[in-house]
């Protein structure tokens, strides 16, 4: 597990400590086993999550991000995320990149 810090984390840590465990927790409730990778689709056509599962997943991922921050924490569903032409919640990989971006901004504050 990563240490409690406001410093940016590596992409491996973001995937391994934040995105995959959060997704695994949601997918564990499903009957069919789903393999996770950076191309796993989270939102839109071909998504492995329904809309309610996506909400729960984002809350879980945000909690995992914030557990590693000294500050109150960030909000994944920011205005910035919602106004982009392509959503950062589309795949595991795009979400990890977006979290990395937010953590870099948080560290710069």
């Amino acid at each position: 597990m990563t240490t409690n810090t406001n410093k940016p984390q590596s992409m491996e840590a973001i995937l391994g400590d934040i995105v995959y465990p959060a997704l695994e927790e949601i997918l564990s409730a499903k009957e069919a086993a789903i393999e996770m990778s950076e191309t796993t689709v989270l939102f839109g056509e071909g998504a492995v999550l329904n809309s309610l599962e996506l909400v729960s997943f984002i809350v879980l991922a945000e909690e995992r991000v914030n557990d590693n921050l000294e500050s109150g924490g960030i909000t994944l569903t920011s205005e910035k995320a919602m106004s982009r032409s392509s959503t950062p919640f589309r795949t595991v990989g795009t979400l990890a990149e977006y979290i990395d971006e937010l953590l870099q901004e948080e560290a710069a504050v």
Partner: protein
Amino acid sequence: MSVPVTVITGTRKGIGQYLARYYADLGHSVVGCSRNEADWTHDRYDHIVADVADEADVKRVFKHVKKKYGRLDNMINNAGIASMNHSLLTPLSTVTSIFDTNVKGTFLFAREAAKLMMKHRYGRIVNFSTVAYPLQLTGESIYAASKAAIVSFSEIAAREYAEYGITVNCVGPTPVMTDLIRTVPRAKMDDLIARQAIQRMGTFEDVANAVDFFIRKESDFITGQCLYLGGV
């Protein structure tokens, strides 16, 4: 069952302080907040200086709750401000400030509370409206509009959070003698009370009784409701 954990906003004085002391006396672990330090203490009460409309401040409150207790059972969104004025004479800054505290504050605390509650699939959120909304009181258009927004938000959040075992309800108090109404002329207050089925001022105990009902474990089939006091 373990000790209930309860967050209450606007606890420095008035109804918020009463509720914080009341639930702490009942054995709850209470976390409260206001824009200034509290001048009272209780063994089971933590006070955090926070602006309810500031997202970073709100997140800080819940970080404290999560770190210290790991869960949250009850969220009581009491913090609110009012301004009595004819809408033709109401400056925009007043509108912004009333909506910031009443609507943004309620939204932020409900959202962050639900995130913490959903993990344990249990939670009670009680928001505060007012009888000024159904009574359509003149001179209170912006205050009543902000409290109407809280009712509407609560009704929809109730449906969105039901999946996670969280109920969302509103209490709509009549006037209670607090700083919020101290400047309202007596004649206006008498007119308002005359429109209630039970014609008297509300008390802190009346409000606590309604909150008690909504946060009971047995109230798990009651959500999206607004309970107006005084028979309004």
